[in-house]
């Protein structure tokens, strides 16, 4: 069973190539790094290995301009990339979300810094890796027994958002840079997807199972609350670790839940109006159709 609807929609293109470590066994088509998807779709090539120990008898594969990828070596590259990025995070508070941080990280791991040149959208790769890590940490926290039973939904949402935002505290001095990197048009699709998954995960944990139009509204609203709090946090230097930010968060979440009620009411209202208008429109249409069918009956069939 899919964990959340979002995974079903967004799973195939999950960000920078990390496999989530998920607690339950799941069908293999869910979270697959994008590169694996491509190679599995084009199976004759996907099975071909560029391992020098094996030889590929088929020489002619004129499939046009495609990337030559195969599963096993690519997995190694992604592991290396993950290792380098993980090491680079330690340098971010000092060097920012930059190539320099990644070069330092690669030196730590013992790999030539040239590898950084091959990361797609370089600094964005680092930021996206961090976002994935945080989401994974959040999932782990939730799975390892976070106590949400005694809280009402709005408080649960607050708590989860707070846990997630607290992960960014060590990097707070450089977080504006990360936000601007995520806002570049080139990077927006991925950052949007990551945030959508985060928001969806939070709602799912809170216990929401809706899958109608409400689903989109909820995710959008929580996305807005999350972003607003994130930005508020950037300039918050209240004592006791961002006390003002958490107060701001609680207020926004409460507003959102009130908004939810108002939206529900607005929907019912619209439905009622629609019903009223619809009835009169339907009456009109029926009259028109009857007139047309009597006229059409006189002419020959087409």
């Amino acid at each position, binding site marked *: 069973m899919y964990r959340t609807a979002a995974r079903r929609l967004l799973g195939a293109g999950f960000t920078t190539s990390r496999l989530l470590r998920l607690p339950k066994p799941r069908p293999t088509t869910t979270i697959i790094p994008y590169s694996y998807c491509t190679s599995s779709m084009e199976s004759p090539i996907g099975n071909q290995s560029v391992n*020098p120990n094996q030889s590929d008898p088929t020489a002619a594969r004129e499939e046009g301009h495609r990337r*030559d990828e195969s599963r096993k070596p690519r997995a190694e590259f992604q592991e*290396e990339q993950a290792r380098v990025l993980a090491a680079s995070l330690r340098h971010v508070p000092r060097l920012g979300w930059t190539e320099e941080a990644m070069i330092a990280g690669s030196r730590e791991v013992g*790999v030539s810094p040239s*590898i950084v040149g*091959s990361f797609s959208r370089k600094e964005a790769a680092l930021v996206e890796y961090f976002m994935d890590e945080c989401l994974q940490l959040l999932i782990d926290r939730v799975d390892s027994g976070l106590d949400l039973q005694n809280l009402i939904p709005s408080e649960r949402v607050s708590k989860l958002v707070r846990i997630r935002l607290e992960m960014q505290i060590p990097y707070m001095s450089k977080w504006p840079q990360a936000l601007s990197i995520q806002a570049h048009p080139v990077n927006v699709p991925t950052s949007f997807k990551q945030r959508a998954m985060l928001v969806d995960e939070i709602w799912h944990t809170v216990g929401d199972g809706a899958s109608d139009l409400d689903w989109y509204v909820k995710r959008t609203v929580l996305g807005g609350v999350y972003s607003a709090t994130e930005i508020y946090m950037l300039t918050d230097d209240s004592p006791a670790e961002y006390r003002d930010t958490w107060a701001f968060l609680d207020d926004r979440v409460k507003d959102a839940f009130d908004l939810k009620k108002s939206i529900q009411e607005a929907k019912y209202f619209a439905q009622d109006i629609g019903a009223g208008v619809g009835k009169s429109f339907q009456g009109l249409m029926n009259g028109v159709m009857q007139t047309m069918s009597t006229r059409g009956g006189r002419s020959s069939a087409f």
Partner: protein
Amino acid sequence: FSGFQQVKEEEKSKLVGNVFTNVASSYDIMNDVMSAGLHRLWKERLVGKLSPFAGMKHLDVAGGTGDVAFRIFDAVNSVKRRALRKVDEASIEETQIYVCDINPNMLNVGKQRAAERGLSDNRSLVWVEGDAEALSFDDDSMDGYTIAFGIRNVTHIEKALAEAYRVLKRGGRFLCLELSHVDIPVFKELYDLYSFQVIPNLGELIAGDRDSYQYLVESVRRFPPQERFAKMIGDAGFEKVEYENLVGGVVAIHSAIKL
């Protein structure tokens, strides 16, 4: 002689040697004319993909006249880069760009151009005569390896790729810029027309050497297409082999990593 003739292996390197001895002095001008200046953009793209960093050890093979090497040097040393980023001067000093070419005439042109830029005493640029199939550099010594418009002239491409793999460090990048195959229907015919009718005539007019450019055009056709070359790179042991077509396939940049 023609690129399509079955040339014996021993003779190929001699013939190529002759070709480049003849064309060395007008190599740069001919490049500009044949590609309408586009070769500069292609080389910029190559260096962009490389993402040079201060302190890197780089090897540019078959880069006699230094086009790619100078670009890498500029990328590492540009004032703007140094101002924007936190680079310490010591790493800039450590940067070493080796330019290796089998043909001393091409290297001389390169050294001359370096002198014109005031870089003849700069320790970062090192001009080395050598064979792509048998490099004189140590194993695991290079952060980057580029070969621009050179690999089609190598007699045994697999050997050159194996040497590239040998000298690169773990995580090092291999980048190859080369004329490649066009598949787009109408454009392919136009390109063939241009190659076979126009270029040899330009060679005669500007460099005074029709045969060398006839050889060039035909050797491009003999070079493996993008996919097959990518496979050869993978067979040499490289990972994450990718290629990017420029101008519909007239030129392709293959990139890979040694892991």
